[in-house]
């Protein structure tokens, strides 16, 4: 009888382990289906769009600062915030060509932002590289009120760019390791 009990307990522990793994995997897929909650803006349509593009930019800069500060946890949080802002973006006021381009950019950027929301800092920086390209392409279409600096670090992954609101270089790919590596390669506005 006790052998029986032992066998059953073993099965029980085995299935518990699997259960845990499932739970661990679950939040990732939940995040992907998160709906944005700030759809009820009552501003005029075009203002609304600009505001949403600016919100994306703000989230992006906050995320960049977290990476500059080597702050993995903060970057996770801000990656998720950015993913939400990206999903809330509404391209309907742009031309057909711009809309399809924007949709593409936003989809790609959302994926990278979501990954940043769940990765270690090395991966976050890898995703930030492509995210930066996406956001730069977005700004080329939406424009912005801000003065932006496109900066470039020749050392990271064969040369990598990012955007900043400040002229002085603070490198998000190396953080404290090489804080000032890079140069301004283009000014926007």
């Amino acid at each position, binding site marked *: 009888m006790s052998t029986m009990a032992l066998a059953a307990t073993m099965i029980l522990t085995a299935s518990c382990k699997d259960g845990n793994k499932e739970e661990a995997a*679950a939040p990732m897929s939940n995040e992907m289906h998160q709906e944005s909650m700030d759809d009820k803006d009552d501003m005029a349509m075009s203002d609304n769009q600009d505001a949403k593009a600016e919100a994306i930019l703000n989230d992006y800069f906050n995320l960049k600062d977290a990476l500059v500060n080597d702050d993995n946890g903060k970057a996770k949080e801000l990656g998720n915030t950015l993913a939400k802002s990206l999903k809330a973006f509404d391209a309907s006021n742009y031309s057909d060509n711009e809309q399809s381009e924007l949709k593409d950019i936003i989809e790609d950027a959302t994926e990278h932002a979501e990954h940043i929301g769940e990765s270690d800092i090395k991966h976050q920086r890898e995703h930030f590289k492509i995210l930066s390209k996406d956001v730069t392409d977005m700004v080329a279409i939406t424009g912005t009120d801000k003065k932006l600096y496109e900066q470039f670090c020749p050392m990271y992954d064969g040369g990598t760019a990012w955007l900043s609101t400040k002229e002085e270089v603070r490198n998000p790919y190396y953080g404290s390791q090489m804080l000032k590596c890079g140069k301004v390669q283009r000014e926007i506005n």
Partner: protein
Amino acid sequence: MKVLKIIAWIALGALVVIQFFPTDKNESYTTPETDFVLVNKVPSEIENQLMQSCYDCHSNNTVYPWYSKIQPAAWFLEDHIKEGKAELNFNEWDNYSDRRKKSKLRSIIKQIESGEMPLDSYTLIHRDAIFSEKEKEAVLNYMKTLKDDLE
């Protein structure tokens, strides 16, 4: 001792009951025109590697192992496959824009290079899914060429 016995019976009962919970099978007998291998005319040795190491979780057709019929393993697999396909579905390759193809290729290269893919929990049973050094290099070179063509 009595309590233990009751717990054991309940656990056993639960294990029997969950066997009757159905899972969604990821099976498809046709390959769409948008498939990675078709679109890119992938050479056969690379194709074989991809089929063996990637397609079970990154396409619409999984070759299921025997334990997929047993719960809770079936749930665990279902979850992995769903997640895998959401990240990358080789069958849908041509539906991705160039921007996304580049993004996906970059992730494919990074993850194979670092050994994150194929997943350890997959290669644990699918020993033939593990890339030899030579195979790894061949697949990586192929993916890099594709990526460079898109730049």
